[in-house]
């Protein structure tokens, strides 16, 4: 039998944009409230969100032998989205990568699959609701990544696990629809509560825990999420998570606890989706040194507003006239495959002779003319400085103007790239930027994934 694996690292990514409830209410003529929802940008999807979370895991150590990618909003069907995650992490050809796509239960599925065999669970979702819906208002977009490995290295271990399954109509969506439908919520509540009770009690008994330190309940049914957790008293008050984030929600909830849990503390993690999965976890002595660099509370606090009309346009719910420009050309298969290290992992080449860095990689050195004397130069984790910039109001973009910056990377290398998550008046020469994996455009159903720059928040 395999040794059970523990969580050795985790990281989350919340997109930078916020949709103010007040703006939403004003547009729809309803009471909006004072909060906001976390919204993925026009160039983000579940794949890019997942990659951003996975990139934030500490580097070094063992390369994950498997990637389990969970989402309810897959960017592709009939094509493995986990393969793009694998490529963006620069993992080469080795290893297994699979999608667990469908309901929010995929999130738990990815965690359990990675826990059973070791590997990386990446949970990511863009949670879209029709205008005026609870999913729109109370949903969230985001991603969480958990690396499972040697129990001796673990920052948290799974000490008990119980699952129950039930078939009933609570929420559903056919693959061609943009948003889910829901049955009357009280029916869902009555159906879920006994399942939560059973799974939770049995898991606590199995773990021999009377009162857990932390209790987290994730459910796409908001009534269940509110009422279910009260079934199990916790010693430590619950923290704040961004809102229900589909398959990523269970991961964001767990990560939020790991941001705070003290060594030895226990966590009852309940995921009520078409049944209930109950996990009891215990933080180890390594938790203090293994917390993610940017806790969820800090990610929630940072943000920039997006207008409701822009948000609807980004989600394809407001069909606006296209610019008078030709649609971008489709990213072709063979060139994309040849340039996988460049396109997906942002790896340039560096001349062994003179050190000149080439973005994209080149065979003939533009510094000294040497041929085939290159070594790979990965730049996805390298920051840079803006040399010059522009805002293109003519370019084809779902969110004009398109901002472009010329970036000099620390340690060598220059590239001209789009700037994400910024407005034209925020750009200046000398500005510090970092890289982010985004979707440039989609043509003929092909997502053109590539890297953009985005402003660095902590160096201003």
């Amino acid at each position, binding site marked *: 039998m395999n040794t059970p694996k523990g969580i050795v690292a985790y990281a989350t990514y919340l997109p930078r944009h916020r949709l103010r409830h007040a703006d939403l209410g004003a547009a729809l003529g309803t009471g909006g409230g004072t909060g906001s929802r976390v919204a993925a940008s026009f160039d983000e999807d579940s794949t890019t969100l997942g990659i951003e979370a996975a990139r934030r895991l500490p580097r070094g150590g063992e390369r994950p032998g498997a990637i389990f990618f969970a989402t309810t909003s897959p960017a592709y069907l009939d094509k493995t989205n986990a393969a793009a995650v694998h490529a963006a992490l620069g993992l080469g050809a080795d290893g297994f990568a699979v999608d667990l796509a469908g309901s929010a239960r995929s999130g738990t599925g990815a965690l359990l699959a990675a826990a059973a065999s070791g590997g990386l669970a990446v949970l990511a979702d863009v949670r879209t609701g029709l205008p005026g819906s609870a999913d729109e208002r109370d949903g969230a977009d985001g991603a969480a990544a958990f690396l499972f490995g040697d129990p001796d290295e673990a920052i948290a271990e799974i000490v008990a696990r119980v699952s129950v399954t039930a078939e009933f109509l609570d929420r559903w969506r056919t693959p061609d629809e943009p948003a889910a439908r829901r049955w009357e919520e009280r029916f869902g509540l009555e159906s879920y509560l006994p399942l939560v009770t059973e799974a939770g009690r049995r898991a606590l008994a199995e773990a021999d825990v009377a009162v857990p330190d932390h209790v987290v309940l994730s459910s796409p049914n908001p009534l269940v999420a509110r009422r279910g957790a009260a079934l199990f008293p916790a010693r430590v008050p619950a923290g704040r998570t961004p809102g229900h984030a589909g398959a990523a929600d269970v991961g964001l909830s767990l990560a939020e606890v790991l941001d705070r849990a003290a060594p030895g503390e226990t966590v009852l993690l309940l995921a009520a989706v078409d049944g209930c999965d109950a996990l009891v976890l215990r933080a180890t002595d390594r938790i203090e040194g293994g917390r993610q660099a940017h806790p969820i509370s800090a990610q929630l606090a940072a943000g920039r507003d997006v207008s409701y009309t822009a948000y609807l346009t980004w989600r394809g719910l407001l069909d606006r006239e296209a*610019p*008078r*420009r*030709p649609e*971008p*050309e*489709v*990213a*072709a298969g*063979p*060139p*994309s495959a*040849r*340039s996988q290290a*460049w*396109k997906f992992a942002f790896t340039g080449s560096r001349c062994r002779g003179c050190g*000149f*860095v*080439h*973005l*994209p990689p080149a065979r003939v050195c*533009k*510094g000294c003319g040497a041929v085939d004397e290159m070594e790979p130069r990965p730049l996805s984790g390298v920051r840079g400085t803006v*040399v*010059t*910039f*522009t*805002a*293109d*109001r*003519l*370019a*084809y*973009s779902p969110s004009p*103007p*398109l901002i*472009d910056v*010329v970036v*000099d990377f620390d340690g*060598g*290398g*220059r*590239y*001209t*790239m*789009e700037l994400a998550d910024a407005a034209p008046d925020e750009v200046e*020469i000398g500005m510090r930027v970092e890289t982010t994996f985004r979707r*440039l*455009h989609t043509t003929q159903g092909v997502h*053109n994934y*590539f890297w953009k720059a985005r402003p660095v928040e902590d160096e201003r």
Partner: protein
Amino acid sequence: MSARGIKDRVAIVAMGCTRFGEHWTSSTDDLLIDAVRECMTAVPGTDLADVEAFWLGTLGSGQSGLTLSRALALDYRPVTRVENYCATGSEAFRNACYAVASGAYDRVMAVGVEKLKDSGFSGLTRMDPPGDGTAAENTLTAPAAFSLLDPAYCARYGVDPAGMRAAMTHVAWKNHANGALNPKAQYRAQVSKEKIAAAPLVAGRLGVFDCSGVSDGAACALIVRAEDAHLYTDHPVYVKALALTAAPGRAAMDPGYDYTTFPEVVRSAQDAYRQAGVTDPRTEISLAEVHDCFTPTELVLMEDLGFAECGEAWRDALDGAFELGGRLPVNPDGGLKSFGHPVGASGLRMLYECWLQFRGEAGRRQLSDPRLALTHNLGGRPGGCVSFVSVVGSELG
């Protein structure tokens, strides 16, 4: 580089140029026919059948030599289609000149044409080969790419952005004022500086009037051996230098490049001056037709072509140095700003202005006694371009 050159070995003896503009009722064929007919009418007694070979420049308005041979019903003559981005028309001219200089032919024609307005799109559009979708030019438009020069120039030379804005406005104002005097220009209205500065933004600080227009047009030149030129005309235009450079693509990757110059222009200008024997372009060149695709481009070109000190072109422009009455008139015909930029035709349109000026046929734009003229084309974007420079003159020697 270090080409030997063909100074004074070939001459232009006739030219044709359509009006540039929105030719909704003319096809590519119509534009070609009109330009070639004007050219041949200028040399009575010479027939198109006497032209031994043709070079056709077009970016996207037709493929192969058949674009020209079918339109003109040419009788089994060699027609070469060339393309080199915005230097396409100049490239057709360059190759045609070399063919005569080589001794292979005695009479050839370079023709350039572009039909842009039929696409229905704003700005230039291109057909790119299949790619991985990562190239910046897949997303960034030409005005945006050239607008990168503006903040970089201000930063490098400590120019107040208001001063730079005023200089860019001056370039647009000057070229529209020149174009207003030209019956073949697309735009023939003078535009006030207030209107230019207040125009809707296109990219960076570039407004609508900082960008050349989109137009249709064609232009052509009949080229013969210099010793035969006077058989056709009393006022031939002699080719002094033809220089083309294509960038290695280094600048776009090179932290040493600062986006205030086009290295390829500097190189092609040096090459052209050497071929022509020009040692001081500021005093020896009588007029220059340069690639003012966007207003900051023209400012930077003044420095790269040696017409201004580095960091000073914006000030020289504001001082009127490059106006019709200035020390070195630049784009006296109105430039790309007034003509629009039908890519394959632009380089030959520039030569057409030199042709008119040398013959004293430039009307209200006429300069007094011009002897030596420069044309310049730039294709690509800051960081990697093809650049063409020619020097032509009204006299041998």
